[in-house]
């Protein structure tokens, strides 16, 4: 027998997550190869609010301020939005597919993005919007192909869509391997892109990512009731007024768009999308009204912390952020799993 009483008070949970997010952002902004300073970052953050933005030169060096505003700040926000998008998408996919193993990449989005990026790199595209655009097209193209092949039957059995995604994903991965073998001089760039990360994030990138993620998370939050009902089964969801095909289609389109955009800029960062929704369910129960906003916060926090570690463990070199999320996240998740018995 499993009681559901072990859940944490939702009020405290969300207050805690909010606090952690603020502290996490502050810490992330304070650490970096250009110098660590809690007071400088605090002062820089507070200046526009209280002192106007002209006096920081007296207390904080101009170069530190530039790094702070144009490198660290957009990078931390990109980690926040990417983590939120991946975690929320993972939660939504797990509900739609009624499968705890589903992650944001089940429809082959990451392989599609990687293939797109790999093709662009092989063709000599460098810098600017070229590689992210190719990755975005690859991601969305793959999702579209999987929809076309699997969505019709998904009304009766979502596993068809899941398996279609896995099959297409494997095929694309094979194509990437072929590209790697045939272009040995580009292996490093392609592999580096595939490992994901937040170097060279700019405000212009955030202007694209932030609205997509914010609207996507809000839209999925709007659908939280339908997502809950889908986890009980299509028959029951239908009898309770859910338009199954419409709901699945809309949720998958929103999720795919969101994941495609973040993957295009940051690469396929694993672990967050699979695990964060489970941790939220442990803590708050499986109601998506709480799992979706909670996953957005927790995913954002985790990726901000992981990215801060990635760029500070062995400076000036950067570790792939996906390695950090898995290395530190997996043991934490295993402890939760052992204590709670069952996902």
């Amino acid at each position: 027998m499993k009681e559901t009483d072990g859940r944490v008070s939702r009020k405290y949970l969300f207050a805690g997550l909010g606090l952690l997010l603020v502290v996490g952002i502050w810490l992330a902004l304070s650490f970096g190869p250009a110098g660590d300073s809690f007071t400088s970052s605090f002062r820089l953050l507070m200046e526009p609010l209280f002192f106007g933005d002209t006096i920081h030169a007296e207390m904080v060096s101009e170069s530190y301020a530039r790094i702070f505003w144009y490198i660290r700040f957009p990078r931390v926000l990109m980690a926040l939005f990417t983590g939120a998008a991946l975690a929320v998408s993972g939660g939504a996919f797990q509900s739609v597919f009624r499968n705890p193993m589903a992650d944001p990449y089940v429809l082959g989005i990451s392989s599609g993005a990687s293939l797109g990026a790999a093709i662009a790199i092989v063709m000599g595209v460098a810098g600017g919007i070229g590689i992210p655009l190719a990755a975005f097209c690859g991601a969305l193209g793959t999702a579209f192909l999987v929809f076309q092949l699997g969505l019709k039957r998904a009304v009766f059995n979502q596993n068809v869509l899941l398996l279609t995604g896995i099959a297409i994903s494997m095929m694309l991965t094979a194509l990437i391997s072929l590209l790697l073998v045939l272009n040995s001089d580009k292996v490093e760039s392609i592999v580096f892109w595939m490992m994901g990360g937040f170097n060279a994030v700019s405000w212009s990138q955030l202007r694209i990512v932030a609205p997509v993620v914010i609207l996507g998370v809000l839209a999925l939050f709007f659908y939280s009731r339908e997502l809950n009902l889908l986890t009980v089964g299509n028959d029951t969801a239908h009898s309770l007024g859910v338009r199954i095909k419409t709901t699945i289609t809309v949720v998958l389109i929103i999720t795919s768009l969101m994941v495609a955009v973040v993957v295009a800029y940051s690469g396929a960062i694993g672990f967050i999308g699979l695990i964060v929704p489970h941790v939220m369910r442990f803590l708050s129960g499986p109601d998506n009204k709480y799992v979706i906003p909670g996953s957005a916060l927790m995913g954002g926090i985790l990726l901000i912390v992981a990215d801060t570690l990635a760029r500070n463990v062995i400076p000036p070199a950067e570790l792939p952020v996906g390695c950090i999320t898995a290395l530190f996240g997996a043991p934490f998740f295993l402890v939760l799993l052992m204590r709670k018995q069952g996902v």
Partner: protein
Amino acid sequence: MLKPVIQAHNLSITLDGKQILKHISTAVLPGQFYAILGPNGSGKSTFLKSISGLLPIGSGTVMHGGTDLLRLSAKELAKNQALVPQNNGMSFDFSAYEVVMMGRTPHMSRFYGPAREDKKRVEEAMLKTGIWSLRRQSVRTMSGGEKQRVAIARALVQDTLVILLDEPVSQLDLYHQISILSLLKELCEKRKKTVVTVIHDINQVMEYADRVIVFKEGRLVANGATDKVISSALIRKVFDVNMERMINDNTGKPFFISAPQSEVQVAGLV
């Protein structure tokens, strides 16, 4: 003459290239307890799903209270009829209370939590189905019978005129079989609900069902008053077994006991 709550006309359903239901024309009358009978694979569940709008209708029509099923929105349908499916599996740890509360979805606003009325109805239904003490337990880890009672409670709180159930007592112990069937019967008699349920136990059909709808190999064999339709001859025709009709001395109601099977039938069964 009562106006049917559900009416199928020349309904055919084909799934994966196989025709499961063949030209079914039948009606469900209000306030009655219907049992759907038939051998495995005869189309009982498909009929239940198709009249609930879950399956694409190949040909023919299904009318709900005079309106074509295809013209009803998902929400209108959800206020009309509740469905207790055969499979009540669960992937995540929703508590029994949360799952029963889902039954109030068609009556609740998207943006507000459950009102006092919703909570009251959920508690009532959980008490009636004997699962109030399990309200905090995760449905995922419940026994099959407990899950079935949670699904029935969820259908009850949906507060619809029609309740469709696919083998709702198949996994219940004897006590809960009787209490759930009595509860459904009471809903028909006192609250004028229409219950349409697949049941396999012929004596439960005789005891509780006002009317029966009988299927064999995707075709409608009969739809009528239980004691007029069910006979040893019909049982032999539909199920290919010999059952003897008896009368209960205390209630005066008919019941069936197994009679010796012919050698051909036994060979078929073995």
